[in-house]
């Protein structure tokens, strides 16, 4: 990217970027706190991470105007790590995640995104929304009716206020009003507040080195987590980048974004934060509030830091109910509601892919598994569909003594057996011509099937002629086929 383009990405839209950054910063707080608590770490880990990631990614990311911070998708992966191995492993995992992501960027793995189909993306987004929603449910535990009432009131403000005015952030009003009410009525004694969840930072983040033994054993503990985190982080970031690309009608550099996420995570790790990635919900809020440039992400990070350091005491008074309401709003906004309607319209296979992605994710709490299952399934469905593109017809020639088979379509492992079954070996013929001029042999299985057919005909004493094989298929035949070699024998397996 040229320098001027980079400057432009920073400063083309400064006023709106800063305002949008402010709106986004407020939307970052609930998620950072809520997911720190879910991951079993202090809220300050999430808050510092959000600040570090947002600021770093604004410089090194590949998509201007996208918001990255500590996210739910990553936090749910950290639950077992923190529970089983302790907080000190969080930092090396975060750093290793960053290294893996930088490697992914350097190897241009961002291009692999095209294997993730539309249905898988929809499934991912829906699963994400469901995870965000479900992770709010424990907050209701043991809190009584007042909690439900507060959350309902919060949602009322969040959705009601924009009908009156879109000039003030309604989640902020929700937080302020609910905090005010709970403080003045003394409900903070019964209702959980942010302060009850752990300490808020009162200092700026400081640079630290991980306090774990640097040996192979440690690596074996952190590697599986880091791989999952790296994959989920990149998937969500690249999907969000595509969404922001669509919104702004401008391209982004996906591989730079991969590496940028890595750098952001490494920095976050060294400053005591946890791994994060791009956030679909907050990026949508950013675009909606007019944010387009890198400055918006930067402003969001800085304003977040100011809010938590300066307003730390007040922040700890916020009732969890207010944050739960905001997170429910994020989850509702993230969910692709049209996908439910589309279940009936879209082809059944794409609906199944979408649902499997959601199901696997929700059961495993790991978006990487969900996407893996979805990609695998869509590949299988595709292979099956293409295998249907095989048409075999035949006709007699010269007094029923010769027959020509016309093969048309794609031959590979799925369609190989259909191919083999299409020939009638009982017929007594002088000569068989197999016309493959409109067919393509893709792999070993298909060549093997062709082998079997050719050799079987020969065994019956029929002369076989293969006609019109294209060049690519021919290369494959030369490499692996047996029928064209002198000592041709049929494989027994």
């Amino acid at each position, binding site marked *: 990217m*040229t*320098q*001027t*383009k980079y*400057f432009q990405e920073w400063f*083309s*839209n400064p006023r*709106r970027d800063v*305002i*949008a950054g402010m*709106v*986004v910063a*407020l*939307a970052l707080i609930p998620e950072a706190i809520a997911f720190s608590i879910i991951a079993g770490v202090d809220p300050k880990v999430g808050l510092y991470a959000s600040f570090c990631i947002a600021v770093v990614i604004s410089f090194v990311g590949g998509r201007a105007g996208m918001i990255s911070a500590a996210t739910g998708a990553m936090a749910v992966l950290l639950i077992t790590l923190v529970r089983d191995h302790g907080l000190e492993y969080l930092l090396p995992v975060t750093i290793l995640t960053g290294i893996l992501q930088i490697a992914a960027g350097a190897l241009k793995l961002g291009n692999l995104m095209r294997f993730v189909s539309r249905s898988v993306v929809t499934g991912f987004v829906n699963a994400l929304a469901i995870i965000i929603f479900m992770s709010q449910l424990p907050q209701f535990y043991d809190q009584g009716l007042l909690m439900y009432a507060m959350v309902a009131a919060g949602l009322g403000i*969040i*959705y009601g*206020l*924009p009908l009156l*005015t*879109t*000039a*003030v*952030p*309604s*989640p*902020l009003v929700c937080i302020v009003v609910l905090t005010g009410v709970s403080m003045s009525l003394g409900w903070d004694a019964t209702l959980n507040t942010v302060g009850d969840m752990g300490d808020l930072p009162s200092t700026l983040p400081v640079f630290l080195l991980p306090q774990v033994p640097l040996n192979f054993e440690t690596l074996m503990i952190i590697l599986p987590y880091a791989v999952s985190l790296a994959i989920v982080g990149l998937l969500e970031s690249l999907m969000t980048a595509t*969404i922001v690309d*669509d*919104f*702004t*009608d*401008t391209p982004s550099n996906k591989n730079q974004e991969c590496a940028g996420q890595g750098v952001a995570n490494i920095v976050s790790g060294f400053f005591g934060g946890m791994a994060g990635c791009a956030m*679909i*919900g907050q990026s*949508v*809020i950013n*675009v*909606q*509030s*007019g944010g*387009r*440039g890198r400055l918006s992400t930067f402003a969001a990070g800085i304003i977040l830091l100011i809010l938590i350091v300066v307003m730390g005491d007040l922040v700890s008074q916020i009732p969890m109910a207010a944050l739960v309401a905001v997170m429910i*709003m*994020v989850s*509702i*906004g*993230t969910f*692709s*509601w*049209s996908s439910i309607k589309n279940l009936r319209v879209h082809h059944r296979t794409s609906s199944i892919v979408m649902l499997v992605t959601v199901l696997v994710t929700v059961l495993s709490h790991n978006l990487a598994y969900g996407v893996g299952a979805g990609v695998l399934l869509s590949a299988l469905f595709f292979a099956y569909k293409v295998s249907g593109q095989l048409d075999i017809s035949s006709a007699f020639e010269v007094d029923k003594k010769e027959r020509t088979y016309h093969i048309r379509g794609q031959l590979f492992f799925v369609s190989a057996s259909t191919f083999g079954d299409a020939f009638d070996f009982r017929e007594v013929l002088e000569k068989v011509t197999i016309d493959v001029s409109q067919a393509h042999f893709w792999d070993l299985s298909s060549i093997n099937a062709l082998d079997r057919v050719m050799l079987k005909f020969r065994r019956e004493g029929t002369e076989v002629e293969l006609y019109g094989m294209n060049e690519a298929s021919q290369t494959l035949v030369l490499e692996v086929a047996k029928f064209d070699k002198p000592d041709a024998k049929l494989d027994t397996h």
Partner: protein
Amino acid sequence: MNILACTDGSLYSPSVYDHAAWAARQMGGASIHVLHMLNPHHEEPAKLNYSGSMGVGARTALLQELVTLEAARAKIAKKRGKAVLEDASTHLKEAGVQNVVADQWHGKLSDEIANYEADADLVVLGKRGNNADFEKGHLGTNLERVVRSCQHPVLVASRAFGRMNNFVLAFDGGSSAEKAVEYAAKETLLRGMHAYLLYVGSGNAKIEAALAKAEATLKQAGFEVTIEHRDGEPEKVIGDIVAQDYIDLLVMGAYGHSSIRQFIVGSTTSAMMRTVKIPVLLFR
């Protein structure tokens, strides 16, 4: 020979056409490619919503809203662009240019000029464009970036086309100034004009030699040459000299420094072009 004339239908456009037509005549009947870019103004959201709240199906709703708003704008811009191009063709035909191609493309001129200037020998554009009012005192938003990415000489048109009897060549002994001298000697664009070779600063033997060589080159090509040697701040002196109304064109090297340096200290080229009222021919 082919000239790329970039227009946006702003105040400077007729002058761009006139300059292009003049250059075409000078270059022995060059063809002119009139280019109009439809700028994507995505950085300026049409409608703002600071509510920070996401409704049901927020993504699709937001995308639809953006598409509808921008579609309306784009349609108007396209229509306007067509009119601009028609106007350009008429203007150029009237000015006696036979070979005119006019077309419009999506994108930013500054990002894409490299794609269009490849088959051009000269690029002509206005000193300011449509956004001039909005950034008074600054140069056209496109100009610097376009000049930076151009491989060919760029003729920056002033507000109105005037006579073209002489030019001042700002000579600093640098490679782009030498390139300018070579171009003047070899190509026909500046033929028949009186050349003022201007050097600003305390001279030394090296500069004197370079000046003499430049003078010889130009004289050999049939130019009448006057050498001017002044002391002082280059920007100011050049500005003062070309402000006298007998000078018709300023020829100079452009943007010798990196854009990082410029971001901090500013560029002589941009400062120059801000102050002078005559057309400027730039060499990179």
